[in-house]
């Protein structure tokens, strides 16, 4: 089993490395910025103290006209520890923090071709939200 706790500055290297390994893009500055006090950044740690996964989110109100909701910006689980409930434990811990702050909705954006992560959020009970994301390549 894993333990969920708030991320610390000392976790940054491992977080950045896990993300770079899974996404192919190295962005340590982005992860450092996620550490702001008004944001939630949680890690899952194995019994031996290794990083099993992380989740990052924050509460945002009136973005795109929507009332306050907890946004999940990122979630990653080490493939070695997948299918053991690490992702669900991270999601539930973040949702509990959102609820403690009085928010009753959780929201995220997912690449529609990424079936793995889409299925994960579906399994957490998430469905299509009230917004449609639109996009255009600038000439």
């Amino acid at each position, binding site marked *: 089993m894993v333990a969920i706790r708030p991320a610390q500055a000392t976790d940054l290297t491992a977080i950045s490395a896990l993300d770079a390994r899974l996404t192919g893009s190295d962005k340590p500055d982005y992860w450092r910025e996620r550490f702001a006090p008004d944001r939630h950044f949680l890690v899952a740690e194995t019994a031996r103290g290794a990083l099993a996964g992380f989740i990052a989110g924050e509460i945002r109100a009136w973005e795109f006209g929507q009332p306050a909701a907890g946004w999940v910006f990122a979630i990653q689980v080490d493939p070695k520890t997948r299918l053991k409930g690490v992702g669900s434990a991270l999601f539930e811990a973040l949702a509990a923090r959102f609820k403690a702050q009085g928010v009753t909705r959780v929201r995220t954006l997912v690449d*529609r*071709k990424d*079936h793995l992560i*889409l*299925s994960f*959020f*579906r*399994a957490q*009970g998430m469905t*299509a939200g009230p917004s449609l994301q639109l996009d255009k390549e600038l000439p």
Partner: protein
Amino acid sequence: MKLQTATRLGLYAVLELARDPTRTLSAADLADRFGVSTHSLAKVLGTLSAAGLVQGGRGASGGYRFTGNRRRITLMDIVALFEPAPGNRAKEAGEDTEIGAALQRILTEIDEIAEATLRSVSLETLLGSSHVG
């Protein structure tokens, strides 16, 4: 979104059998449950059986049971057995015109979202969320 009758019956049958993989139901049992003819359901079960999702059969009274993986199989896996793949769709009249192509881009956009949705819902997720599992 409109699904063909066979697709809908395929989804019903798989989900009904997947609720309890130890249970066997005949084509007649399932047909009765959904208010359709045994003949149309037997045909659908044949397709599901060939895809390895269910096992059994042999006559109208032969029982079928679910043999797939509830967590791995998504609604799209079943839909794809009955509906033409988006890429293999026959070209509609007028599609080569400028207006036809512009309209087709919108319809493809809708199809892509529908496919992503169907692919993201496993049998486990659907059965769990509807409290029928």
